[in-house]
């Protein structure tokens, strides 16, 4: 195959256990988000919008629905001859099989894939955050610095810095220090877990790491510290836009709410960099004679006879008469029956909230209520 400028390796193998009931039978990147999307859509759309046409998706945990959703990649225009989306699950060789032991190990086991495409640069991504980024700009930073490795970073409030992996950089942006969750941070630049490696350096580094018995084969834990210690050219690429992880129930809910309002933190209506998805064909939604919809995102196929306020309604949701949905996220096919009242809740795919049930609380000190996929919540439960 021909030499490529830059290919992406998307780490999509994690279970996402902090999303609880939403990931019991489905990998985190395949979890519904934002009405008609799945979490992985945002990263794949970033790839497509950045002109990256070759994306290896490393899967491991319950990948079937994710694989089915990815299909040929055509939903993101990523079905290129000699490229496109490739699903890269763990596999066996003559020496037996091996699960992906860490983020770096997952890429190591697919070095053959990278070598086949023979790119100059490799972009390492994970599929669990909401952000819009033109990876070309980061690649430009990488090339301008003649870097071995570039790490995307964003400034976080100083008081939060000790919750992140913090990179300290000099005036030229060259990384001088990397500290995981420092007690006394000397920088507020947090790693976003997005890396560009010069391909030759990546291959050499991973091949060495694979032989290192003491390594846990993790990019943040092993590869970056080692490269720093070896005096390699590591640079930061500063990202100033919106970025949020959707890996916990709280952040999932909060980020969903960030889509709403006249000036949302993340604007689905920015058509210059559209978010693409592998959508089903459903008719436009219907708002009934007594329906009330205020400050909401509403997807195709919904039927709203009651009231929805400040909520995200995914494809094919039903809100019955006199039912009220507030500050909530309804996943595809969720049904809120007549007279029910849900507040600050996430209702799983095809879950049903029976008539008259009350769920959730306006009290933000309490946890977000979660109903798992396919679960039916009756009265008194």
């Amino acid at each position, binding site marked *: 195959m021909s030499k490529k400028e830059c290919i992406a390796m998307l780490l999509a193998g994690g279970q996402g256990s902090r999303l609880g009931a939403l990931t019991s039978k489905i990998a985190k990147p395949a979890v519904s988000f*934002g*009405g*008609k999307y799945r979490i992985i859509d945002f990263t794949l759309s970033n790839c497509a919008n950045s002109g990256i046409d070759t994306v290896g998706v490393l899967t491991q945990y319950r990948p079937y629905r994710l694989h089915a959703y990815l299909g040929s990649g055509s*939903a993101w225009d990523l079905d290129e001859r000699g490229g496109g989306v490739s699903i890269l699950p763990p596999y066996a060789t003559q020496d037996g099989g091996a699960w992906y032991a860490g983020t770096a190990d997952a890429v190591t086991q697919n070095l053959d894939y990278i070598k086949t495409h023979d790119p100059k640069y490799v972009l390492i991504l994970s599929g669990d955050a909401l952000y819009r980024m033109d990876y070309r700009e980061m690649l430009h930073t990488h090339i301008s610095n003649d870097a071995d490795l570039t790490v995307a970073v964003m400034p976080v409030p100083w008081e939060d810095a000790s919750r992140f992996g913090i990179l300290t950089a000099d005036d030229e942006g060259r990384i001088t220090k990397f500290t995981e969750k420092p007690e006394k941070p000397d920088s507020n630049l947090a790693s976003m877990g997005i890396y560009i490696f010069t391909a030759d350096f990546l291959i050499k580094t991973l091949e060495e790491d694979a032989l290192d018995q003491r390594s846990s084969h993790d990019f943040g834990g092993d590869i970056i510290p080692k490269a720093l210690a070896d005096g390699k050219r590591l640079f930061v690429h500063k990202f100033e836009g919106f970025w949020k992880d959707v890996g916990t129930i709280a952040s999932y809910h909060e980020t969903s709410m960030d889509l709403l309002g*006249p000036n949302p933190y993340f604007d*689905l*209506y920015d058509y210059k960099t*559209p*978010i*693409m*998805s592998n*959508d*089903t*064909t*459903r*008719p*436009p*939604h*219907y*708002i*009934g*004679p*007594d*329906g*009330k*919809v*205020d*400050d*909401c*995102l*509403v*997807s*195709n196929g919904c*039927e709203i006879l009651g009231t929805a306020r400040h909520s*995200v*309604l*995914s494809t094919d949701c039903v809100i019955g008469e006199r039912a009220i949905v507030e500050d909530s996220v309804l996943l595809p096919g969720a049904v809120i029956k007549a007279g029910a009242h849900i507040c600050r809740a996430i209702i799983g795919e095809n879950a049903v909230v029976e008539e008259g049930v009350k769920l959730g609380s306006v009290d933000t000190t309490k946890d977000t209520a979660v109903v798992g996929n396919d679960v039916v919540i009756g009265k008194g439960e």
Partner: protein
Amino acid sequence: MINRKAIGYITANYTSREHSVLLDSRPLASIPFMGRYRLIDFPLSNLANAGIKTVGLVMPGNWRSIMDHVGHGKDWGLDRKKGGLFPLPGNPYGATKQGMRFLLRDIISSKSLFERSDKPYVVLMGTNIIFNLDLNAVIDAHEKSGVGITMVYVHAERNQEDAMSLEIGDAGRVKGFHQGCHYGDNKFLDCVVINRDLLLQIIDQYSSADYLDLFEAIRPDFERIDVCSYEYKGLAMGFFNEETYFRRSMELLDPTTANKLFMRERPILTKAHDAPPAKYFSGAVVCNSRVSAGCEIKGTVRNSIIARGVTVEAGANVVNSIIMQSCVIKTGAHVENAILDKSNVVAANTELSGTPDDILVVGKAALK
């Protein structure tokens, strides 16, 4: 599921007898419908849901909007190595005569499509009467009855002079047909199952009458050919002019009616787009309306159908109207009893109204 018995053949060159600005830029087959569909989606989906993988599509002269919409048929599972969607040049002036849907000349020039097939049956469909039918049930009934042709009809619930009625005799045999349709008549749905061999025979034997509709041509031979009927009991809607277009669309506001057409087990498929979910702002008032993806609603919408990518600004009012793709209704504007074709911008604080009996129709991008 791959249909092993039939291929499909859609004539998309039917032309309305009445002029409409909606048809200035496109044929009837590609008129936008219910916010995200076009009429051609219905025959294509009926065929797709029956697993039919080879479909000839007879094009009118102004085929561009159809081609843009259907592409190579991917959204209907018709982007195939074997079979697939075959656009065919049709009579460029359309099948303009009353009731003509299957111009024999078009069928004759599509002969190679029928010759190359190895399936025993061909399903013929038009594009201006829509329904959601289990075609395999029709094919099975046709096969069981052993006849040459099965014509699908529905019990007419209203008068319609542009539709065709079947005269049905014993054992469902079709004795004849006539133009026009009254309440209680057997309204022909422009949907036919025909033996492929018979169709090839007709192509050879009736070529001198190629200016006629297929059924006009073979009418004298109905007895010999053995034409049977099949009653469809679901919802069917015919689109013949602006009035039928508006009335039938409005009837589909009712979810009970709409669910007879849009069902999950036999979905109506259409071209996929990447529009985000519709966005409702604080202060939006929407009732008894269908709203499509990509809409931004800040104002008031009542009894209306709003297509993809429409903006209704704060203080704007849309009542009893059909608003097509990418229109913008500016602040304070009032639109009532109207059809706005694509890409119209209704200026702030203006009024644009028809009456319930005389709907105002605004052509594509007429207001900017």
